[in-house]
């Protein structure tokens, strides 16, 4: 095990998969010599050249669309959409094409494409560079959706995404690129649909996505000082979703908090809460709580931005309320 940055883990995953399979190639804006806006592809241009680490025009529909066409015809593209906010411009190709064409053709083809992107607030990027839109893509049958929270998961999930024969939307978090964590030097893959229990606890289950896993861990530390044992679960992929691990946890704790930066309304938290109610309603001692992004655009000024996205203190407060 060695301690590496999240961005480095992503880069290692890309490098390993590109060395292993010559059909894998990268395309996106500024990913080549520039190394990517968040430096996740740094060094790959030097190793693999401009054909396989392919800079594109500023053209999200073309990035996504050419990736879909290439994926249908024998390649395994990893297309980067620089900010998830920009996915709007590429959504037809992701939602109507990548997600559906294997099915619509009666299973004649597969579309092994990864759309890498990043989301999240916390650095005063304002409402068009800070949204967390995982619910949009999770809603669409035919797309798998992964959100790694740690360097270890970033590497293992990205390698799995690249080897998957169906389209994967792979959502990183802009404030996690400099996060450090232990990553095995041995090759490993992390299967989709297997949640990670980041911390065990008997009193309250906190299901957290992406960077909220870190805040949930912070909250759990604080709660532990008051004798409240929070169990923190990171689903890692929201499609497929590991309902079993979440339900098992709630059956133990009887209390559920779901947290993500994405808007509360119709967010992934609603799905998680519905699954728990459907499968384990009688285990619940209190109604489930969503501690998620407020239903407003993400504002610029730090004080307002911090207010609209959930913080560790919000999680701790919600947990205490559920314990009353």
């Amino acid at each position, binding site marked *: 095990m060695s301690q590496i940055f999240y961005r480095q883990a992503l880069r290692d995953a890309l490098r390993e998969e590109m060395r292993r399979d010559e059909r894998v190639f990268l395309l996106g804006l500024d990913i080549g010599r520039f190394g990517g806006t968040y430096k996740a592809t740094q060094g790959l241009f030097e190793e693999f050249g401009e054909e396989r680490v392919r800079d594109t025009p500023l053209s999200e529909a073309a990035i996504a669309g050419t990736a879909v*066409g290439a994926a249908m015809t024998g390649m395994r593209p990893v297309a980067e959409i620089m900010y998830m906010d920009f996915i709007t411009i590429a959504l037809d190709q992701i939602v109507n094409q990548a997600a559906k064409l294997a099915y*619509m053709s009666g299973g004649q083809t597969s579309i092994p494409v990864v759309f890498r992107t990043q989301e999240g607030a916390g650095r005063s990027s304002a409402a068009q560079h800070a949204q967390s839109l995982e619910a949009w893509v999770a809603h669409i049958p035919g797309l798998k959706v992964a959100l790694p929270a740690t360097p270890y998961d970033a590497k293992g999930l990205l390698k799995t995404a690249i080897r998957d024969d169906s389209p994967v939307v792979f959502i990183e978090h802009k404030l996690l690129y400099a996060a450090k964590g232990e990553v095995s030097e041995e090759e490993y893959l992390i299967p989709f649909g297997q949640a990670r229990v980041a911390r065990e606890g008997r009193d309250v289950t906190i299901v957290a996505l992406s960077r909220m896993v870190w805040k949930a861990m912070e909250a759990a530390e604080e709660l532990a000082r008051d004798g409240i044992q929070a169990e923190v679960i990171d689903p890692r992929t929201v499609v497929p979703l590991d309902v079993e691990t979440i339900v098992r946890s709630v059956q133990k704790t009887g209390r559920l908090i779901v947290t993500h930066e994405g808007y509360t309304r119709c967010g992934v938290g609603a799905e998680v809460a519905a699954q728990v109610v459907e499968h384990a309603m009688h285990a619940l001692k209190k109604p489930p709580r969503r501690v998620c992004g407020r239903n407003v655009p993400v504002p610029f000024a730090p004080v307002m931005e911090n207010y609209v996205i959930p913080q560790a203190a919000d999680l701790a407060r919600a947990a205490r309320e559920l314990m009353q």
Partner: protein
Amino acid sequence: MGRKGFRVSSPSTSAPEVTNSVDRALLLRIHRTMVRIREFEQRAMELFLSGELPGFLHSCLGQEAVPAAVCATLRENDYITSTHRGHGHVIAKGLRFDRMMAELYGKTTGYCKGKGGSMHIADFSLGVLGANGIVGAGIPIATGAALSAQMRRSGQVAVAFFGDGATSQGSFHEAANVAAVWNLPVVYVCENNRYAVSTPVPRQMRITSVADRAAAYGLPGVSVDGNDPLAVYEAAREAVERARSGGGPTLLECRTYRWMGHYIGDPANYRPAEEVAWWKQRDPLVLFEQRLLEQEVLSGGEIQRVHEQVREELEDAIEFARRSPAPAPEDALEDFPQ
């Protein structure tokens, strides 16, 4: 790359000698393909109007020359993407009547096992990457297939078929631009049938020829009479050769007309009757058959036989489709990554 845009205009008012540059076998092939499209579309319309087919239908009657001629320049493993008005393209690329009909009937024996229908016929074994219900969406996909061909050094070419309406979509502009920058082996074939649903070309764009859009991307833009299969063939052959030999993409506008409304059942009252009548007098199939007769490539009897053979095959295909099993409801959950 960095190629200077140019434009070839082909008024094509007088019939060129059909045997000048294309051999007899090719003429027969283009003719048969046009007949196949014509007969298929007429029967499909009848079946639809009789209530036998679910969904809706976009007819390409009147536009047969374009796919027949363009696909005659392609190899079996070349790629095409098609549109909601796609029967002609996929017939021209070599798809079978029986499995197409079965798809129109929503049967398990259809190309897409009844999951696609009229608007989404695909056959990946013949490079047909799918007809598409989103206007313009096939253009970046064909471009991606061309990228894949270029990276695999496979020598394949991709053709995107689309209408005049699609050229106002961002997907067209984004794809054409990136294809030009990457010098991809792709040919953009615009069937300019003068209407985007009900909106005539002058209300869609200020230019008079879609081919003019090519200049913005540094691509050759060529405009031809889309009702003249030989004019289309010549232009497509040049574009496909350019693509295959590393010369990059071409935008080829084929000026044509759709006889029917946007969909079967559309009264198409947005078009003057005289305009429709004028274009019907320029029936691409009738004009081509006249030339084949005049230049003694085919006799009247031979032309008749082609139509009869195609109709026979079509009736067999309809029987096949009618007799084929319907899918079970839960088949809806198959062919899908879980």
